[in-house]
Structures are given as structure tokens and as C-alpha cells.
């Protein structure tokens, strides 16, 4: 299997989808002509290959970008639009939350909205108006699905599933992964079903559920814990909505300990949903209280040492897991 960067894997999925289906078009700010010349960027080369009819640079207009997707998808096209950075999704929130998520329901099932919104996330020295992990906001809007890949194969497979899914899907792409994470990517029409988690590492002592770039932090922690004789199972959720509850529960039943990890802030974060689900279903099997590891409840600070302080680290994970082992 060829090894690709995460960004290249996204580009491959976009190109493949467009080749397969004429109803698919792309739109977003600078997705065609970009200020960056970087082959690891997800829309690199697509304008040259598919032309300006199908690869559309838009004005700086997030509401219009997502409005375009909602309207066009109701007409049967399959729009794949990009919102440049996660905080800017708030400008498109009306179209996404009040419309993409609700119009099918409002129509009594008569309409459908096969659209995909790709949004770039991550912490990258730009401060809190460029970096804000808002996945829990979106997860709280019934009607949306949310995929969140951690590696190149999943980036391709989840995106293809999202594009051909008949419902609105938001795919969160952590920008630093585009060029830092490489891996084998299956060729052809490879799909990872939405709602199917992946065991990223087998373990018997505790279960950690996470997603996106934090998966790599968790794996680092698991490696360190192994040296101390503690075996951590790492679940890469891959999709937040729908959530693969069965895989999480099965793992917790095996290990008896559960913790969550994400780069988003803690209060009302996605980890809270996971913790509640496990507490409701596995209470009797738990040997220690459920723990959540997340960013502190502040916006992303700019100053480099503070930015590092903000992001949960492998050390934090190992410390928490050690504590859970002593708890029982």
C-alpha cells in the first residue's frame, strides 16, 4: 500500500469522489488558488485537475459557503465545502445548525441534504480566533454527523463515506496532521463507515477513548505505561456522531477503567458524553472513577509556553492512568 501524508489522503479522496460522481463539487476560501504551495494541503492540485466549474474559490463568506451547500444538496448535488478554520464555523452556524441539520426533519422526511463540510482544526500558533475545538457544539445539534480522522487511511475512508452519505456530515481535519502524520492508504474507493471506532492499541488495564491528533498522544502514553507494566487500550473513535458506543462499552467491560482525552476544553466537552455513557452502562464493572483529560477551560493562548500548557500531554495521561491503577 502506498504511504501518504494525511493531507494527500484527503486530496485523494476528494479527487476520487469527483471522478466517480459528476454531482460532486468543491467550494471554499482559497481551495483552488491558495497562498500556500504545499503538496500536503488537502485541495492541492484539484483546481488544475478538475477546473473552476467544480473547484470553486469563494469570497470570504462562510454563511454563503454553507448556504450554497444546503441549497445545492437539496437539489440533489453533493457539495463538499470547506470552512477554513473551526472558529469561523460560527459564521455559518445558522446554515449548519438551523438548516442543514433540521430541514429534512422539518420536511417530514421529504427532503435530504447530502452535503459535507470539511473544517480545519488544531492548535498552530495563531491564537484563539483561529483555534477552537468546537466539535461538542456540533455534536449537540441533532441532524449532523461528525467524522474526525486521526491518520491518512481514516482521513480518506471517512471522507469518502461522508461525501456519499445522504445526510449532512462535518469532517474535522486537524491541520497539523496534514504534514506530520504519514501512513499507508488503501487504494481505490476505500471507505470507513461512520460510527465504527478502531482499537488503535490493545490493552487490558484501562480504556482510553479519544479522536484526532490526541490519538497519537494517547499512543505515546500507552507506550510509556507499557514499560511500567500497565497496559492501556486506546480507542480511536473516528466518528463522534454516530458514536460507536458498543466498542467503547465492550472495551470498558474488559478493562474496568475508563478515561477520555481530547484537545477541546473539558467543561461540556465530548469527553463528558463518553463519561456519562460509560457511567450509565458499566457502573458495576468500573474499578475506578471515570476520568477526563482535556484542555483547561480557557481559549487557546498564543504565547508558545502557554500554548503547550493548554494542550493535554502524554505525561498527563500517564499520570492519570497511574492514579486510576492505585484507585483499584
Amino acid at each position, binding site marked *: 500500500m502506498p504511504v501518504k501524508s494525511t493531507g494527500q489522503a484527503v486530496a485523494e479522496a476528494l479527487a476520487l469522489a469527483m471522478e466517480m460522481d459528476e454531482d460532486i463539487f468543491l467550494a471554499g476560501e482559497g481551495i483552488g488558488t491558495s497562498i500556500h504551495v504545499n503538496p500536503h494541503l488537502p485541495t492541492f492540485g484539484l483546481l488544475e485537475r478538475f477546473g473552476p466549474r467544480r473547484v470553486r474559490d469563494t469570497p470570504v463568506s462562510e454563511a454563503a459557503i454553507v448556504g450554497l451547500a444546503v441549497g445545492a444538496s437539496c437539489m440533489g448535488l453533493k457539495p463538499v465545502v470547506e470552512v477554513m478554520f473551526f472558529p469561523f464555523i460560527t459564521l455559518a452556524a445558522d446554515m449548519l445548525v438551523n438548516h442543514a441539520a433540521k430541514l429534512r426533519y422539518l420536511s417530514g422526511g421529504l427532503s435530504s441534504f447530502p452535503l459535507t463540510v470539511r473544517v480545519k482544526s488544531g492548535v498552530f500558533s495563531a491564537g484563539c480566533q*483561529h483555534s477552537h475545538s468546537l466539535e461538542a457544539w456540533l455534536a449537540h445539534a441533532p441532524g449532523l454527523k461528525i467524522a474526525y480522522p486521526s491518520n491518512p487511511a481514516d482521513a480518506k475512508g471517512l471522507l469518502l463515506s461522508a461525501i456519499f452519505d445522504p445526510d449532512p456530515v462535518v469532517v474535522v481535519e486537524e491541520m497539523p496532521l496534514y504534514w506530520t502524520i504519514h501512513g499507508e492508504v488503501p487504494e481505490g474507493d476505500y471507505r470507513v463507515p461512520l460510527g465504527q471506532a478502531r482499537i488503535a492499541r490493545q490493552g487490558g488495564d484501562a480504556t482510553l477513548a479519544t479522536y484526532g491528533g490526541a490519538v497519537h498522544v494517547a499512543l505515546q502514553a500507552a507506550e510509556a505505561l507499557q514499560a511500567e507494566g500497565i497496559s492501556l487500550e486506546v480507542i480511536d473513535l473516528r466518528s463522534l456522531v454516530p458514536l460507536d458506543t458498543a466498542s467503547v462499552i465492550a472495551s470498558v467491560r474488559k478493562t474496568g477503567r475508563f478515561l477520555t482525552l481530547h484537545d477541546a476544553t473539558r467543561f461540556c466537552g465530548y469527553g463528558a458524553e463518553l463519561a456519562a455513557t460509560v457511567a450509565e452502562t458499566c457502573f458495576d464493572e468500573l474499578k475506578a472513577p471515570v476520568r477526563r483529560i482535556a484542555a483547561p477551560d480557557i481559549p487557546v493562548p*498564543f504565547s508558545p509556553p502557554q500554548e*503547550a500548557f493548554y494542550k493535554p500531554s502524554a505525561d498527563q495521561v500517564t499520570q492519570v492512568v497511574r492514579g486510576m491503577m492505585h484507585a483499584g
Partner: protein
Amino acid sequence: MQRDPLDRDQRIGLHADMLLIRAFEDRITQMAHEQGRLPGMQITCHGQEAVAAGVVRALTPRDVIVTNHRSHGHLLARGVDPGALLAEIMGRQGGLNHGKSGTLHLADPGRNVLMTSTVVGAGPLLAMGAAFAQHYRQEQGVTCVFFGDGAAAEGSVHEAMNLAAVWKLPVLFVCESNCWAGAQAHKEHCPIGEIAARAASYNMPGEMTDGNDVEGVHETARGFLEHCRSGKGPALMECRTYRMHGHGEHDQQQYVDKDELASWAGRDPIVRHAEVLRRDGLGEFMAGMLERADQAVDRAVAFADASPFPPPEEALDHLYVNPILREG
């Protein structure tokens, strides 16, 4: 309206401001290319100095500025300390905003550079609110907001202009039309050549000015500020200029026509103004000005370099006036 002509000191002051801005940003450009010297991306207003100097020097101290990601010029023309500015850009303790902002959201409320947003198109809304306060308290102040030609595509800009016009709020909307929004040329994101033409649809005065003519910009700004101050509502001033560097210093401008760039280089606002001053017999007053600007920048670099990074835990500070304490 007849206004007093600019006196010698005002004209020389405009020139000194532009030189300081250029010297400061030339140093930023240089440092941006030294590996690891500056965190994040650097955005300069190289070529647009006349807009910053011309407009800001027309403001009174009680007037309020709202700015955006391309803000160095606005801040320096307002008299913000270059050392504190650079320290903030470097994420240091001694920075204007204690390292919370970094380069993209630089603000100095103490000097009435009241708010900065890097969310494109947000500034006009914030300015409308600030101007409401000035109007409500029957102050003489005006709020001046700088935004780009790209920003004019955001719906927020329409809402701000509409409400400011309906309520006759004292906002001077200054559109820096620098021919680019990222890698998108003006005609790719804007259906009309002059955004100032939209003023008519809000029943407010609007005008396109030569943004590379510092004295012309200054004169036009003075006229519009009188309008705003006299209770007649907002005004829209568009300054035609050119973004001489890329969107940021990392941008190689591969999409920019080289002849177009060269032709705008021939209209450099600083060179042009120096010629005007010399023509008017004021050449002697420019002696030593460049050296003084460079020395001010040297002092700023020394200050910023000597300023430590803020302690990581201080990332938790400054979120609320009355902090919320959370368990766990």
C-alpha cells in the same frame, strides 16, 4: 467643506509615521525568515502605510479604533510602543496583551485601539457597537474601523453598515482595498470595482481615494470625520492601495502578476511623499528620520528579546473579571 491646509509639522509627522511602520515591518519580515524567531505567521501592511498614517493622524485621542489582522500600521500610527508591540508578537510577558493575543489580535485599549479581531468582517460590527456607546453618551468621539476589500464580502459588514446608518452612528468605515483577499484578486470576490459605491445603498457618504497618497488620505479622512462627528451618521472611505508582500510573510505570491506588482512598487507611498516634501522645500526635515525609525526598532527588538515568556499557568488568567473556580 473648507479645512485648514496641513501645516509643516503635520506633513512631516505623516512621513515619520510611515517610516516607522516600514522600518518596524521590515524588521518583522527579516525576523520571520530567521528560523524559530517569531511564533506563527507574520502579516505586514507593506505598501499600505499611507492609509494607516493618513487616517489615524486625522483622529483625536478620544476617537476609537477597531482593527483587523493587518494592524501594525494602525497601532504604530496611534503611538503604541513598538517594544510592547513586538514583545506581544513574540508572545512575551512584556507584550501589549501579556502574550494572550500574539500577532493576530494586537490591541491597546489604553490608547483607544479598542478592539482587534482576526475574524474577517467582525470589526465593522464591533465598531458599530462602540459608536453606539459614543452616540448614547453624546460624546464627540468617532469610531474608525479598518477592514479589507475581502471582508466586504461578509454579511456582518452589511449588517454593521445598515444599522449604523439607520441609527446615524458615528462610524468611519475604512476599507483598505489592497487588491487581494488571500490569493483571490478583487474581481474574483467582488462584483463591483469600488466598494465605496455601496455607501449609497445605506444612504451614507462614500468615496474611493488614492490610498498611496498620504496627504490625500489624511484630507479625505478629516472630511469624513467631521461628517461623523456632526451627528450625520457613518461614512465609508475606501482606500485603493496594494498588498506588496504576500498575505503573510510565508506567502510566496506565486499567483501575483509580476508586472502589476512592479507597477505598484513604482507608486510606493513613502517614496512618493518624500518627493512631495522635497518639492515643497521640506527635504531637510527628513534628515535623520530613517535612522531614528531604525533606532526605535532596535530598541523595540532589545526590549522584546529581554522580555521573558509568561509563566505557563498564567494561561488561566484574564478570562473573566470575576474568575470561575472549577473543581478537578
